[in-house]
């Protein structure tokens, strides 16, 4: 398949073993418009990275029982059920004369063109007011920000930037101070309960080094998760958005693809079909350390004021003896 060939080639380049040069910055383009919510990425990630089990609960949040990214969840598939037509379409397929059983009997041999008309194609609101429903699915992951707050604030240097441009925690250095946790504007990194150290997606650092693509991208059956050099992915994403806009899906938009955004551009960006907050993503994330010079200035001013106030008070009351 073409995809595997391209990703295979790109990952071959990324190792830089033969050339000795710095490999290009790589990342993920997660195209949620083709995500089918199979959670193969979640499973592949857990398996490859030996991420422990983190609770088996039924949340009632559609088919999402994973809940959120965290110390032991490095890929998270969100499920959003909305009473919105899919991409603003007008469903016009008459379903009355559709022989569901006949379709089923043909199984997966249904030609692509015909498969467009399925029993699940939503129709207009019914007489009793039930509306159309769309189901958004999106696989979330660490954004591997260009300006990474977690990396900036880490006091031990446990978090570092790899030669591939990803951000990784050195587990033998992390002392579990937990400062990276509230620093992340996306709520990705977390301390693992019972362990104390911080964990997050490593962009499969071990696999990249061996010229392999990350486990989640490898496992994704629809190529919703695409891995490769960031520049190429951004170009491809622009084309995909244009394609969807032309096809009449005006809500398709890229998230995290702009190098001049609040985190300097994400190493893992997304094609979304609704506002980011619908998927649990912040609409305009900013790296907190951009304001750090201002903060230090105020802290210095405050310290000097404190010292000055104390000196002034003692000056007013003078020497005791």
């Amino acid at each position, binding site marked *: 398949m073409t995809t595997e060939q391209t990703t295979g080639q790109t990952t071959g380049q990324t190792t830089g073993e033969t050339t000795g040069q710095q490999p290009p910055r790589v990342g993920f383009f997660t195209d949620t418009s*083709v995500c089918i919510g199979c959670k193969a990425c979640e499973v592949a990630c857990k398996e490859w990275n030996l991420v422990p089990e983190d609770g088996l609960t039924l949340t009632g949040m559609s088919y*999402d029982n994973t*809940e*959120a990214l965290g110390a032991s969840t490095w890929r998270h598939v*969100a499920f959003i059920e909305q009473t919105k037509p*899919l*991409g*603003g*379409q*007008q469903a016009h397929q008459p379903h009355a004369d559709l022989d569901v059983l006949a379709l089923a009997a043909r199984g997966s041999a249904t030609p692509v063109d015909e498969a*467009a008309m399925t029993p699940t194609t939503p129709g207009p609101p019914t007489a009793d007011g039930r509306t159309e429903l769309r189901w958004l699915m999106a696989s979330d992951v660490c954004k591997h920000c260009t300006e990474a707050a977690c990396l*900036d*604030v880490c*006091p*031990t*240097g446990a978090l570092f930037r790899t030669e591939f441009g990803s951000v990784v925690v050195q587990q033998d*250095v992390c*002392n579990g*101070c*937990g*400062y990276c946790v*509230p*620093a992340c504007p996306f*709520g990705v990194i*977390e*301390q693992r309960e019972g362990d*104390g*150290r911080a964990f997050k997606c490593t962009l499969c650092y071990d696999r990249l080094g061996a010229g392999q693509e990350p486990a989640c991208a490898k496992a994704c059956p*629809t*190529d919703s998760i695409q891995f490769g050099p960031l520049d190429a992915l951004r170009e491809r994403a622009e084309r995909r958005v244009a394609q969807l806009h032309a*096809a*009449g*899906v*005006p809500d398709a938009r890229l998230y995290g693809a702009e190098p001049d955004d609040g985190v300097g551009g994400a190493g893992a960006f997304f094609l979304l079909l609704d*506002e980011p*907050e619908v998927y*649990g993503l*912040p*609409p*305009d*994330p900013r790296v*907190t350390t951009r304001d750090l010079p*201002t*903060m*230090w200035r*105020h*802290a210095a*001013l*405050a*310290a000097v*004021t*404190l*010292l000055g106030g*104390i*000196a002034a*008070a003692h000056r*007013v*009351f003078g*020497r*005791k003896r």
Partner: protein
Amino acid sequence: MSEARVTRDGLEGVRPGREALFGNGLDGGRRRGRERPVVPQAEFTSYYGRPVLKVPSWEARDIAGYMFLGGLAGAGSALAAAAQFTGRPATARALKLSSLGAISLSTAALVHDLGRPARFLNMLRVAKPTSPMSVGSWLLAGYGPAAGLAAASAATGLLPRLGTAATLAAAGLGPAVATYTGVLLADTAVPSWHEAHRELPHLFAASAATAGAGMALLAGPRRENGPARAVAALAAGGEALALRSLLTSAGHAAEPYRTGRPGRLLTTAKRLAFLGTAGATLLAGRSRTAAALSGATLLAASAATRFAVFHAGIASARDPKYTVLPQRLRLQAEAEAEAEATGAA
């Protein structure tokens, strides 16, 4: 995952893969070019009401307690030096001892809060100005021994010169120890902390001065407590100003400071500060008991302020509203400004 077959006529059974269309695409794009709605959302949306941010796993007792004790120690060291050089030796000695006690306790709280306490020395592996916690670790590494030496020399009377040098060093580093914690909280994505990043260092400096003055009133003799009473009054004024500025400038993120547990803590802090300052300025000059009581009240006020700020941040991180709404409004304002700019051009 392709199931395509290569035949003489080319590929057969090719699936669209990443080019797959859905929704409108399936109807041939008959409604193409429909404009996106530009009306801003009146309400915020979220993913099942779940927080966008991760709530820090810090214990209130450890971290808010650390900030209170660090402030008490830092301001106390500055007060101790001032007292020593203006002939108030009993107050100076008491404050040096309290600063050593406070900084020891606060360091213990910090180490206790680590996920891997045995690795606490990793804090001194690197020096990173981009990490307030790294800066703080180095500050503590300098300040702690200085405060210790100053206290030891004051308690034993040995090595007076070294003691004086340590007193000066502790007085110089102390205010930084007291105010950097404001940056420590503000340099996060937590809305109620970050949106207050201009005010928190000032609020913490004032709160530290409140604690230091409180300790001076509590532990120092009455005849030496004049400056401490003045510092208490100054600190109360500064704290009120900083807090007011914080609440007006933080926008939506100011709400957690007014409601719930942090709101109640902050009200308590204000009342205690008022009582303590009134007692300090009006009665502490006349009665040792009144001085001690006002001092204790001021210490409690400072602690309540730190716990209020800590809990406000936690509350703002838990509710996606405080993350999404201000960012949404910011985007809206930017879009409006851009529209105006293009309209004018």
